């Protein structure tokens, strides 16, 4: 019995807990992608780098607060600097919209042209982030590192294996739940939210009904920028901040958005967790877990790792391809706005 429990705890610690927080981060990212896709109708290639930009601003704010001796106790200081990061990212997104995307909207350009323009924005952010904070890894998590340490868990339960819950992981989940709740309340209960949904469902009809495209688009950028910054900061707190990883995270985020169906907020959340759980469950080495479940089983030197960690991106990709083959509109039937 103890063996089974130990195995389960091990699985919980190395797969379920990290995948839950990673899934929440991906879901927040995919929500942003979906919003922009639903309202502005293009895949935003600058998404990852905008996340990096928001995180960078937050890190700078964190450093300023830290040097001023400010602290949030057991919570990371970055949480206090988050509003600054969000504000900066909102400003940037609104400026980018006015200077770049608005022009193509007036021209009624094809989605692919928007995508190209978002690539230009990505380039600029890429340069700015590297110039300001450099290409290297930055760790900005402080406060209490663990909510539950492995030792505490072992002492409390008497098991051999422990579950570690990092503050950043608990925080990720809490913040993500709050953000998603707020977003859904906004979309369902407010006039602007209803206008956004109408606009994304049928632009012409919405405009005929007197929906102001300016307000809708501005609100979309504000919400998307908030989601991007929150997702980026949570990811950075959980792992660490390195500009290039924020470019690479674009693929899992897109995969999550497509799995759920482009332009579907609920789908983005489901998609985020599907991608995160597959990625972590497939790259985890199960040797120890199996030894607990089937003691004495002979596995040679095999680690029982299905996919090497270096190929974790291939999992998002395979999910993407499978969805494109089986259900191109996503598992929740995306809007067919092409």
């Amino acid at each position, binding site marked *: 019995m103890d063996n089974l429990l130990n195995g389960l705890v091990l699985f919980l610690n190395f797969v379920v807990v990290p995948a839950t927080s990673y899934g929440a981060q991906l879901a927040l990212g995919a929500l942003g992608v979906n919003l922009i896709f639903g309202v502005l109708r293009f*895949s935003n290639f600058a998404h990852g780098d905008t996340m990096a930009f928001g995180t960078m601003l937050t890190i700078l704010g964190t450093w300023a607060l830290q040097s001023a001796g400010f602290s949030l106790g057991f919570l990371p200081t970055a949480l206090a600097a988050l509003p600054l990061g969000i504000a900066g990212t909102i400003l940037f997104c609104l400026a980018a919209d006015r200077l770049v995307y608005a022009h193509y909207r007036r021209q009624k350009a094809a989605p692919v042209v928007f995508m190209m323009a978002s690539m230009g924005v990505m380039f600029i*952010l890429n340069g700015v982030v590297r110039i300001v904070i*450099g290409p290297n890894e930055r760790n900005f998590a402080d406060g209490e590192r663990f909510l539950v340490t492995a030792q505490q868990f072992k002492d409390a339960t008497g098991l051999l294996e422990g579950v570690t819950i990092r503050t950043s992981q608990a925080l990720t989940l809490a913040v993500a739940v709050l953000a998603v709740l707020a977003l859904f309340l906004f979309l369902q209960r407010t006039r602007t939210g209803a206008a956004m949904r109408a606009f994304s469902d049928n632009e012409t009809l919405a405009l005929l009904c007197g929906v102001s495209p300016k307000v809708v688009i501005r609100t979309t950028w504000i919400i998307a920028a908030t989601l991007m910054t929150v997702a980026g900061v949570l990811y950075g707190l959980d792992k660490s901040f390195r500009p290039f990883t924020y470019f690479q995270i*674009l693929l899992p985020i*897109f995969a999550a958005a*497509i799995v759920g169906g482009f332009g579907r907020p609920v789908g983005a959340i489901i998609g985020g967790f599907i991608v995160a759980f597959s990625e972590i469950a497939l790259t985890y080495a199960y040797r120890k877990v199996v030894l607990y479940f089937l003691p004495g089983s002979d596995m040679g030197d095999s680690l029982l790792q299905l996919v090497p960690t270096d190929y974790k*991106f291939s999992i998002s990709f395979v999910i993407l391809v499978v969805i494109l083959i089986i259900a*191109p509109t996503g598992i929740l039937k995306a809007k067919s706005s092409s």
Partner: protein
Amino acid sequence: MKRAVQLYGVLTILFLLVGFFQSWSVALATLNLCLISAIMALGVNIQWGYAGLFNAGIMGFAAIGGVVALLVGHAPVWGAIEQGGAGIALSFVVLAIGVVAAAILFRCLKGVLKYTLPAPMLVVSFVLFRQFFVPARQAIEAYDPAASGFMGGLGLPILFSWPLAGLAGAGVAFLIGKVALGLRSDYLAIATLGISEIIVAMVKNENWLTRGVKNATGLPQPVPDGRLLQQQTWLIDLVTWMNRSYLEALSATEQTAALRLLVAEASSIIVKLAFAGLFAAVLAGLLALCVFALKSPWGRMIRAIRDNEIAAGAMGKDVAWRHLQILMLGSAVVGIAGAMLVTLDGQLTPAAYIPLRYTFLIWVMVIVGGSGSNVGSVFGAFLIWFVWVQSEPIGYWLVKMTTFWMNDTSPIRTHLLEQAQYFRVLMMGTILLLVLRFHPQGFLPERPRRNRQSRSVGE
């Protein structure tokens, strides 16, 4: 036409300036990379300019070309092949049988069985594959890891790899296109972005095949060897004759030292010139093919599809197949360029494959040069690569000028100087956005302007 001549004239002057004021070696090195970039840009232009396909994975196709160059050109490592060659071959045969069988089942079966039978079959064949593959890989990677640790290649002349790289690029493009084409335009971009990340991850990690980040060096060169060239008497005589007035002014000992330096430089220039000749020949051939293709009935059809897919479809054109064809053609050209790049370097450097340089910079070249215009894309490639190379010193200069009032030890100034290389990324983004906004047809636009207009305005 006049405009093209003028713009290429400006480029020539720029290169001559670099040659006279910096060095001929630098000018030729830049020129060689310009030529390769131009071929990549041609490939991207086929996809984007002819058909409006957004390929965000150019890096991956270039990397495939590089691997093909390695596998064709590198001498085989017999020891490693003896250790694990059979195991590797067996494992892939097993995998291929499993995949083909699953594919046939997927095609033939209907209903629930369509998914429930092939999926476990794939899993089983993958497990069997690992059974043979893992020990074979370990054996190969353990063989003399300091010097090889991989299987090497076929040991053929490396020029063979160029057409083969084209085939490999087209093959991968076929698989991607089958899945992602015909859906929303974004899906192709996302799928190609994904496949390129995976390909580069494989090139970095599959040590048994590519030697990974340890870099597989020692590829044969299709041009004379620089070191052998330095010992040729005709070259030494030629260099002596060309620099006779300079050499006469020196003493005897100084003369030999100076002569050695001059000969070394001359031989490197000759090698680079030979490369430039090869690359220019390939570029000219491909460019001619592209120009003729675009003028032919096939080109008219392709442009018709691009400008109005629905109308072209109604006229009986098979839009999906033509898009797949275009994707494969463009990727083949990028693959060729990838193989050429590795040939030029003489080694495969997997860590050098970064999306910014191999995907997005090529896009800037095509947009700036003029999407849809072959001559324009080539011009864009030359211009952008030239600016990319030369803008690094400009970045430093800019930082120095804007921070001159700061103390030399000021942390902000030192930090900015360290990161000055990234100013060129910022600059490329700005150039891309400015051209896209104010001059979307590029420097050398595609001839019929009304087509361009109708496309940039909407579908």
